[in-house]
């Protein structure tokens, strides 16, 4: 029996301070104290996620790289995650936190199916759930270090905007696209990009997509997406030329196999200090 109450509930460590000679507030930490640690910084990270609306739904893309600092550590990681049949979640930031979020979402779907009430979660509901989780964790100062895009397409009820208390339900297909991050910040727009993509791809996307959301076909959307991923690969040092595209339409979720970008580097020869020049 250990007679020192300050040792109770702690893993035993006979090597250090066996007789509890330190005052409680300054006693040496045991070797497991460091084991309980909150995510104070991201470790293995994914870079940008891009998404936008087009005529028949939502298109989202992310490369397949998970970096460890500047090291390209894992080159075949899926950062697009389908949730049910109507929604895709794309993640940038810490990949272990993202895997935890994937677990949460799987559990959420299992619970929803178990209810056997023929109700399936809409993209808006999944986004709301994620916002609450992300905001709750930031409020505990123990954030999930991610930027997430939620894209989806589902039949739902459209509310008559002129009278919110007594809505007239109209069944329509609704495109949904929204963002949530480690602070619980949320927003929605017809084009979204996380991380480096918010600075580099977002202006290109806005130019290509805004006011054409109802016209763009899937083929045109794919072209725009590829162009943006290419620019990101050229300019973002933490990116990869392998990426996946998710399309969410009324037919459900479709996540492509990984595609490879066709890039050209011949221009590098002409850059002083980059190519083979000696002078």
């Amino acid at each position, binding site marked *: 029996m250990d007679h020192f109450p300050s040792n109770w509930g702690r893993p035993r460590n006979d090597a250090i301070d066996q007789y509890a000679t330190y005052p409680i507030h300054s006693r040496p930490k045991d070797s497991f104290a460091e084991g309980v640690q909150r995510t*104070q*910084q991201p470790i293995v990270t994914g870079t940008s996620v891009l998404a936008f609306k087009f005529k028949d739904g939502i298109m989202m893309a992310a490369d397949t790289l998970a970096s460890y600092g500047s090291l390209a550590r894992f080159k075949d990681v899926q950062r697009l995650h389908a949730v049910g049949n109507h929604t895709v979640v794309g993640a940038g930031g810490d990949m272990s936190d993202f895997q935890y979020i994937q677990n949460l979402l799987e559990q959420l779907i299992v619970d929803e199916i178990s209810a056997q009430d023929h109700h399936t979660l809409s993209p808006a509901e999944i986004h709301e759930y994620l916002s609450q989780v992300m*905001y709750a964790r*930031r*409020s505990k*100062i123990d*954030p999930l270090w991610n930027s997430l895009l939620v894209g989806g397409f589902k039949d739902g009820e459209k509310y008559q*905007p*002129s*009278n*919110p*208390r007594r809505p007239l339900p109209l069944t329509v297909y609704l495109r949904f696209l929204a*963002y949530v991050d480690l*602070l*619980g*910040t*949320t*927003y*929605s*727009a017809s084009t979204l990009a996380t991380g480096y993509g*918010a*600075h580099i791809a*977002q202006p290109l996307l806005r130019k290509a997509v805004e006011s054409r959301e109802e016209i763009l076909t899937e083929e045109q959307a794919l072209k725009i997406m590829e162009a943006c991923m290419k620019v990101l690969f050229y300019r973002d040092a933490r990116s990869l030329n392998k990426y996946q595209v998710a399309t969410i339409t009324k037919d459900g979720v479709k996540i492509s196999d990984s595609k490879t970008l066709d890039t050209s580097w011949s221009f590098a020869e002409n850059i002083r200090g980059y190519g083979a020049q000696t002078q």
Partner: protein
Amino acid sequence: MPGSMVAMTQPVQQSFNPYTENGGTILAIAGSDFSVIAGDTRQSEGYSIQTRYAPKVFRLTDKAVLAVNGFAADGNMFVKKVKQRLEWYRHAHAKDMPIRAIARLIQTMLYARRFFPYYVYNILGGIEEDGTGAVYSFDPVGSYERETCRAAGAAQSLVQPFLDNQIYFKNQTPAAGTQFPQHLPLTSVLPLVIDSFTSATERHIEVGDGLEIYVVVASGSTSLQGLQNLRGVQEVTGTTDGERVFVIRRELKKD
């Protein structure tokens, strides 16, 4: 120096900051029997525009509208919680909470988080039980006061002195034998609100994209005339009798 050596040799943990600032500006003006609550719709972080349409002004009841500005995640959560408390009140009392009670509720809710505050500036506008227009403004930890007009947010320092001059007639002298009005009519207030936001948009990078103006009108008010046939006006009243709520939407410059 030993102190600076520690900083040099030991890695400093950059601690997680649970707050950010999302820009934008809100403003409210009370009339004798109406209240105007407005906000721009740009949401930004640093130099990036996150979206051109993220509402900051919310209808709580038919007689109260709340504008929130500061950290958007806190703002949305705060509005959600206020709405929830108002619904509970409806279930318990079978009526909407009066605006001065909502104001006190907001003060209590903000102060409850005194040591981990909602980083949000609130302005509550609407109609008092006696039928007068009201504006209540709050700081992030719940200090509040009833006023005639208030601006808050990124361009508060640009807008508030303009409102002092145009609403309170500060630094102006009335013509001999006349008096300045205590309250301006809606037809004068709306252009002042629009001018305030176009001015703020011109000189502040975090203000712009869109403008949402909520107008709460007391039952039987004469201010209704002219409001309904205004361009882009939409009624969002919930009940059929009592106060009425309208939204006016305008574009602001997007650069």
